[in-house]
């Protein structure tokens, strides 16, 4: 296998691996920009993945799975909102709770409904999001380098992959070019000012939490019905936390979030690729180091050694109306 093909394959799996990170990261972006910290990305994604797997099994439709994933994930998001917006509870505690509830419930219900040790039955291709060929693959295939890049790298992903990457400019547009986005950012920085302008802080924050649940649900559906063929116990395996790391790495900005997720996805792809392949000069790099690298990089960033990550000012603080 020549090195060009290897590079192409690594980049291709980079895209596949970074999509759930990207969706979860954008989900966190909406929530945290509105001042609601969300440790529960992991749990919402996991519950979404289970709902997608279960619904796709029963209905035989990937879109029904997607819908179920979004509904479940938004419901968990509303629980988070109910605790942290309405009852002014600790947002981190609430997020941790959601992670545990999702981790336990998916396994218990999965075992009770499908009797396969917490996983959902393997889905046939008809009930999954399958790769789609973009137009022009055939015509471009003849051209040496561009043809291969187009057919391997750009074309041939599922519709959710394209959706995820389209959501990046969309999120940027929403945040920086719409009234809703302006208010969303304002409520994360200075909720009192938003309140003074006569806009409801709770309702705005609830909408942010719903957006977050929506995207986490799509991320879950991607894991269970596009990347995999059915739900597996603890399917997210810390992706929600990596997404959180990526969000900090991107300093809560959408386009940077995409690059951060691609970077972390790339590290993951390299780690898989390099297993058992010693590098020249360095020797064999332990897989565990590659796996820990996103976390180490985030901590170095958080420490302020490569630029400073400053979270939204009102993040994590419940808003109490002055009377």
């Amino acid at each position: 296998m020549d090195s060009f093909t290897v590079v192409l394959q690594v980049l291709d799996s980079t895209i596949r691996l970074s999509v759930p990170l990207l969706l979860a990261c954008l989900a966190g972006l909406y929530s945290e920009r509105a001042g609601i910290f969300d440790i529960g990305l992991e749990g919402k994604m996991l519950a979404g993945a289970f709902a997608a797997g279960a619904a796709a099994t029963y209905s035989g439709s990937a879109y029904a799975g997607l819908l179920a994933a979004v509904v479940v994930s938004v419901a968990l998001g509303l629980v988070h909102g109910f605790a942290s917006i309405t009852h002014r509870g600790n947002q981190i505690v609430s997020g941790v709770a959601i992670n545990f509830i999702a981790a336990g419930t998916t396994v218990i219900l999965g075992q009770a409904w499908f009797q396969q040790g917490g996983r959902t039955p393997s889905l046939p291709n008809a009930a999954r999001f399958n790769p789609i060929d973009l137009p022009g693959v055939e015509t471009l295939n003849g051209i040496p380098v561009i043809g291969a890049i187009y057919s391997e790298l750009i074309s041939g992903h599922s519709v959710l992959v394209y959706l995820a990457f389209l959501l990046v400019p969309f999120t940027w547009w929403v945040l920086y070019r719409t009234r809703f986005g302006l208010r969303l950012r304002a409520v994360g920085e200075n909720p009192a000012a938003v309140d003074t302008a006569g806009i409801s802080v709770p309702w705005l924050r609830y909408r942010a939490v719903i957006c977050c649940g929506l995207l986490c649900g799509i991320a879950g559906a991607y894991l269970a019905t596009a990347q995999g063929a059915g739900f597996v116990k603890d399917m997210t395996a810390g992706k929600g936390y990596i997404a959180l790391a990526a969000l900090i790495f991107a300093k809560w900005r959408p386009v940077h979030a995409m690059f951060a997720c691609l970077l972390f996805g790339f590290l993951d792809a390299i780690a898989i690729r390099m297993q058992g392949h010693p590098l020249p000069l360095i020797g064999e790099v332990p897989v565990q180091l590659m796996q820990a690298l996103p976390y180490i990089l985030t901590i170095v960033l958080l420490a302020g050694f490569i630029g400073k990550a400053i979270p939204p000012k009102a993040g994590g603080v419940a808003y109490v109306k002055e009377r």
Partner: protein
Amino acid sequence: MSQPFAKLPAWADYGLLPLINLIVAFFVAGLVVMLVGESPIDAAVLMVKGAFGSGDGVGYTLYYATNFIFTGLCVAVAFHCGLFNIGGEGQAYIGGLGVAVVGLGLGNVLPWWITFPLAIIASGLVGALWALIPAWLQAKRGSHVVITTIMFNFIAASIMVYLLVGYLKASGTQAPETRVFGDGGQLPGLGWLLSLIGLNMRSAPLNISFLLALVAAFLVWVLIWRTKLGYEIRTMGYSPKAARYAGIGEVRIIVITMMISGALAGMMALNPIMGAQHRVQLDFVAGAGFVGIAVALMGRSHPAGIVLAAILFGMLYQGGAEIAFDMPNISRDMIVIIQGLVILFAGALEHMFRPTLLRVLQRFARTKRQSTPAVAAEGGQ
């Protein structure tokens, strides 16, 4: 209205409200049990029987409780300083290295009553050092301790897998675990303690680190409520601004608190490693660090409450394992749900019932006040 809620009487705040929250959490858990087609009441009976019905049931319950006392204290100490240490899992995992050094190095040479104190120091030290970096980053650079400790959990897991698969693995085996410690690296069981109350512990791994956990709980109480340092920690947690005006060094308090917290988590490693398995295994912490969050919230960060909450969760762990035999649809994962619900209702939604409870209590007090003169009038006739 600057304070969101009026104050409740102490007995309601520390007794009734947590109890209501707990009941609601278990009620919702019961709904999940019903959803999978089992009876919640049967499940509860089975659980209590499994946990306390026999000598080894009690032994296992207290063995699990030992882990949770340590991790609960770890979370609680940080809570008192206004810090949320989610890193108990990682600090306990890496603390296993300290136990491994003592157990592997001295287990064949020295008796247990010398290796035990050394292992306490080593595990505590390693756990404390693992908490030092997040603490320092929080104090000096303002990086949020929640995020950094989560990251450190993953880094700790990676390091331990790397070491256990590569360096610490016993020669000639495939399993990623160390060799079994010598006799000096194995802690004595507490069968004699249970036989005092007429129970036979049989193979349950309850060991002397349970007593260490109780001592640690007492010492944490002394630290938080009876020392100058504890006062400074609480001041910092209650109002960092007031602490600053009082001349309390923010960096010093945050670092010291987090290191104590990490040390407590690190000592948890003693119980499964030296007390039960006599070797370091992959993922020996098994989520106990996270259970500590639920335990600390339920115990309201008070050592006495934590010991009770830890025993309750020990019961859930042991009883949950027993239920699985009779109700195949309910596995250990049920405990994870209960844990999540307890964290939700006792932690994030702790204020949900407060206004209602306050109203009920006020109405109760009013009717009592109104009825007292009426009784007096009747008596006067």
